[in-house]
């Protein structure tokens, strides 16, 4: 059983701020968040490359160091590199031997899409090819748990498709996979669970459909004389209303329903703008719930509780 992770990180920069999560064995989970959110720190910590300032990290029921020594986890770290002078096939052969040949050479070359470039020297590889070699090294031990830190960053569209197919193959064989990405689409398509991270905190943790529901939230802005916030809050789909003078900002989970109802109120609406969803929007929405309190005109407070019924929030 894979039991994880409470870790607190401090020092001058707090990369992870009292983060806790646990991923059941066999799952494929995504850490989703913008750059600098703490995803890489989390993965490095689980691989034993960094020690948490406080808190406890367990992978497969043991310490990261023990899991690495036992060859039970594999990882593709963002800052991983390859040594000059070696051929692709030699590198893979080396890692096979380090893991006592748990997966065949041909198997690894095929899974990582390297069969055609097995004889190439490492320094002749493109960024995408290097990334695929690192993927092969991560798989060499047939790990119980696989960490992938932004694994497709240098891959083109076709290579990405092949890559995720291979990850699916590995997952079907029983490997637990945790990957970091800053693309919602990638997390949605390949994970059964998404943990949204921002500024070292977990902002949301749920299934892809739960997370996507969050990102479908639209921001509707307009101005109207003397806005009636309680009436606006009762409109269909509305989560949150903030009024400041004539200016009104509504967050709605169903803007298509909100807008006709807004006009049906019969009050003048001017300068209407509808802002899109997307991950960044969702993150802004999630963070502003805790930090915007001071400027919200009373009505907004009811919604924080409503949101968190959908999503487990920590921090």
């Amino acid at each position, binding site marked *: 059983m894979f039991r994880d992770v409470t870790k607190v990180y401090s020092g001058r920069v707090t990369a992870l701020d009292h983060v806790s999560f646990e991923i059941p064995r066999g799952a494929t989970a995504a850490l989703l968040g913008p750059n600098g959110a703490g995803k890489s720190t989390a993965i490095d910590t689980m691989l034993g490359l960094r020690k948490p300032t406080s808190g406890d990290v367990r992978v497969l029921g043991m310490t990261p160091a023990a899991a690495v020594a036992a*060859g039970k986890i594999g990882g593709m770290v963002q800052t991983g590199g390859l040594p*000059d002078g070696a051929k692709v096939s030699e590198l893979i052969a080396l890692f096979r031997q380090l893991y006592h040949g748990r997966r065949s050479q041909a198997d690894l070359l095929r899974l990582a899409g390297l069969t055609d470039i097995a004889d190439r020297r490492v320094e002749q590889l493109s960024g995408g090819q290097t990334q695929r070699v690192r993927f092969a090294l991560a798989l060499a031990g047939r790990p119980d748990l696989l960490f992938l830190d932004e694994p497709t960053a240098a891959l083109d569209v076709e290579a990405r498709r092949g890559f995720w197919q291979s990850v699916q193959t590995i997952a079907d064989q029983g490997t637990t996979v945790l990957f970091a990405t800053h693309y919602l689409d990638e997390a949605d398509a390949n994970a059964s669970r998404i943990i949204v991270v921002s500024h070292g905190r977990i902002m949301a943790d749920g299934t892809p459909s739960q997370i996507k529901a969050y990102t479908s939230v639209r921001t509707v802005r307009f101005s109207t004389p003397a806005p009636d916030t309680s009436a606006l809050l009762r409109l269909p789909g509305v989560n949150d209303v903030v009024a400041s003078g004539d200016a009104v900002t509504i967050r709605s989970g169903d803007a298509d329903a909100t807008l006709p109802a807004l006009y049906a109120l019969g009050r003048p609406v001017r300068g209407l703008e509808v802002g899109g969803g997307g991950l960044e929007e969702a993150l802004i929405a999630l963070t502003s719930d805790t930090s915007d309190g001071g400027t919200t005109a009373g009505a907004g407070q009811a919604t924080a509780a409503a949101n968190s019924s959908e999503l487990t929030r920590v921090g």
Partner: protein
Amino acid sequence: MIAFLRFEIVRTLRNVRFLIMLIAFPVLLYLIYAKQHGTTQGLTVATLLLVSMAVYSGMGSAMFASGPQLARERHNGWMRQLRISPIGTPGWFAAKLVQSVLMIIPGLAVLVALALTYGHVHLAAGRLGALVVIIVLGAIPFCAAGLVIGLMFDSQTAQVAQMITLLVLAFLGGIFISWSSLPSGMQTVGKLLPSYHLAQLGWNAAAGRPLGMSHVAVLAAWTVGLGAIAAWRWRQESTAA
């Protein structure tokens, strides 16, 4: 560990330019100076110089095999990749040590061959054998020095640090110029360096004199000291917050 060692050797051997550069300088010096006549410390110039150049080549090869390469690979992330593999620190250190020692063999072989032909050096098989063993085992403290440099410096400065260290070891250790001709302050420093003691061991072996256990002791002390520093730096880096 054996797999890792083989991997390291194969890719180093592929770097032909690097190997030639390692060997070229001591070989060239030997070609220039070995024809001089005379005897010092009971050794002909050609024999004396064989020892000097073998020590120099051994130090250089052992240090270059570990130092700058390690600095580069810490920088480019290969070390991180290895750290999350089950190779383990002792296995990695052992492999690097053996690799460094093996790296000195090509240079040593070329120098010995040159000495026996071009230099007309006549050494009894026993003395020559002792010399080879001394040079090979004597590479160990310099390998440790290379590891320390590779772990202390970044990839750009490691090369320079290595070069400076090597030259200081060669000059003050009495390898490029006779130790007794150094100013007395430098003699004092030189006598503390492992290069001085390795060269003394080499000359003693070639001349058939007793080796002198104090030289062995100093080299062992350097190995332990540098090894401890390398292990400390390694741990410090792997537990970085």
